[in-house]
């Protein structure tokens, strides 16, 4: 990515700071010298064509890929998913989601809320399922959910837990028009509550509605 192509917010008290990030697949560089900062309550959208490295940037940030060089700081400290605080504060939605085949949609969210310290999450889970339009499917096992419902359940995972930073890869994927509108409203609400959002998207309307800044990635030769 050419550094000149990014126009991102740069407050001093950055929640997330990415400095000179580089990543390679073998010898081929995918990302070079990417720098941006994301403040609390702000959203940055990563845009660009397929193969530009959007998902790779997100993977580096959540620790699923190892950068070749550069720094990624969360609240001033190097981000490392092995650290408990990072796992508590960063809600992610990448393509690594899978389900336990024998737990229902509601039980999955229940489990996640409990794992984050909510000892009685039933009401919260029901509210979120209702909010996301999955209440009728609450008792369904993952195998019987449609791909759109699975996607909504995946989005719900980011809402049922505490979060300071949300890292979302194409959150609008497989959602219908109403769903994308709902998503847009939710992300704006998240920003207002102080959550920072970094998301990759191919939807200009969503980017326009949610993002305070845009980082444009272009495929490297």
């Amino acid at each position, binding site marked *: 990515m050419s550094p000149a192509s990014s126009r991102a917010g740069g407050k001093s008290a950055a929640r997330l700071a990415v400095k000179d990030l580089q990543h390679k697949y073998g010898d081929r560089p995918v990302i070079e010298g990417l720098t941006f900062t994301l403040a609390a309550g702000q959203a940055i959208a990563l845009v660009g064509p397929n193969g530009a490295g959007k998902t790779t940037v997100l993977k580096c940030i959540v620790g*699923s*890929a190892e950068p070749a060089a550069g720094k990624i700081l969360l609240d001033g400290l190097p981000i490392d998913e092995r650290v*408990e605080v990072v*796992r508590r504060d960063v809600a992610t939605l990448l393509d690594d989601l899978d389900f336990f085949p024998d737990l229902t949609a509601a039980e999955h969210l229940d489990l996640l809320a*409990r794992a984050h*310290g909510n000892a009685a*999450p039933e009401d919260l889970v029901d509210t979120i399922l209702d909010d996301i339009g999955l209440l009728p499917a609450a008792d369904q096992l993952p195998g019987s959910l449609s791909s759109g419902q699975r996607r909504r359940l995946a989005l719900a995972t980011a809402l049922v*837990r*505490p979060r300071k930073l949300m890292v979302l890869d194409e959150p609008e994927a497989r959602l219908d028009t109403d769903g994308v509108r709902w998503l847009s409203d939710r992300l704006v609400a*998240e920003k207002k509550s102080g959550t920072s959002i970094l998301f990759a998207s191919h939807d200009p309307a969503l980017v326009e509605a949610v993002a305070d800044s845009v980082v444009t990635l272009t495929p490297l030769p």
Partner: protein
Amino acid sequence: MSSEGPVVFDPADFGAIPSSRSLRQWMRTTRRRHADRSFWQIFEDVYLVVFTLAMVGATGGNVVHHLNSSAARCTSSTCGELTLWMPWIVVPLLLATTIRMLLAVGPVSASRATGFWLLATPVNRAALLRPTYRLVVAVVAVTGFVVAGIVWALLGTVWIGFLEAAVLIAALLVCAGIATVWAQQSARRSRWTLRIADLLLIAAVVPAVVLALRPDPLRGAQIANVVVTGFDTNLVDEYDHAVAARLMFTSVETHFLLLAAVVVILAVALVVVTSQTLDKLSRNSVIAGGELLAGLAGAASSLDISMLGDVIAGRHWRMKGRVRSHRGRGSRGGAIVHREFRRVLRWPRRLIIGFALLVVPYAVSGAGFGALVPVAAGFAGFIAVRPMLDGLRSVCRSTGLTRALGMDLRELRVIMAVVPGFFAALWTGLASPAIGSGAATFAVAAGILSGAVRQASARPPSYAGPLVASPMGAIPPGLFSQPARGFDLLLVCMAPVLLNLSGTWVVAIPAVILAVMFSIRPKTD
């Protein structure tokens, strides 16, 4: 979807992070509510498995016991040489295999679901992973104990001797297993550990090569044993090798016991210390192994050896990610042969291992088991050649790919067997001095090629067609013959050699098999 819901995070909802134990307990309770099988149904299945294991264990134990008695009575110099040399081949080989296999699957692994719903939460990761870690240690210890026990029993060692050897090697393998858990914590450590595994593999090949060349194998083993155990077999009549070997084992019992005790203590200490560092494992490294294990379990459930290889090869190429493209040459069949040749060169480790396996027939010959050389050469050659048929396997399992290549599958099978066929001929040619006659060499080469081609082009068991009732439930016909595919032709080709038939039969039978093999069209779904 509503846009009025309380999506916004309320800190008051969240308190202390629960323990891994309480979370697992919650999952158990929740799952129990969905249980669709009664206790007795589960008990019946468990009973069946335990009964089967007991039967197999008893039969296997009996066979090993008989072989142990026979080996103990053997006083030939060949037996003595084997007794002295085998530990130097087996121990590094076991260590290298353990390290490689464990690093391939993690060794600490978890499913993608566990990775997302549990490991990505602030719950103590070390505590979440500890049950898997304990399972890995237990599996390594039990496997090491059983394998080492069997090897030493087959060498004719008295029961206390092979018990000590089994304990020592199980503890050594546990140490190696712990090293892989430590290595899993960073890519750099993994690379170094893999290099050590390669060195161990070379260390296992060296005595096999020495045994194969036989300058004075007993003397070499004596030197190695003196270095490790302090016992000099030269003190014994050098012509009574078997007695010397047994005497050595008896005399070094104290050394062995002491060594075993030290290694067991070391292993236990390492297990305890490393269990505290499991939180340093990245979610990625843990899930990668889980995915591989899930693939391997799927392949194992259909008893499909080729599919096991596919899963491992698939992972290898996914991790590799990118290689340099080479333009093709020629057209039609020639282009495919060229592409296959380039593809084989793309994974040089397989070629190196393939050629390294040449030591097997020579070592067997060097150890004095001349009658077993063709069988050993056949199986070693099969292992060397079979990975080169991955291209044929892809084509046979993908009707779309066959259509895209625009040729008949029978024709494709012949074309794609050219490069492996050339390698099989080269391999057996190099093994020929150990195998003996030219006719036997041809039989082995034909067996390797026809067996490998048959295995690579075999259809996977299909659950879509008619099924056969069995105590395990409905299974596709031919499921249990699946693992034997390929090896059957290998044995048929080598049968004339093993039965000591005339040279004409030794050449004719494999030639007919090859001709039939390549003239019929493989079945597809």
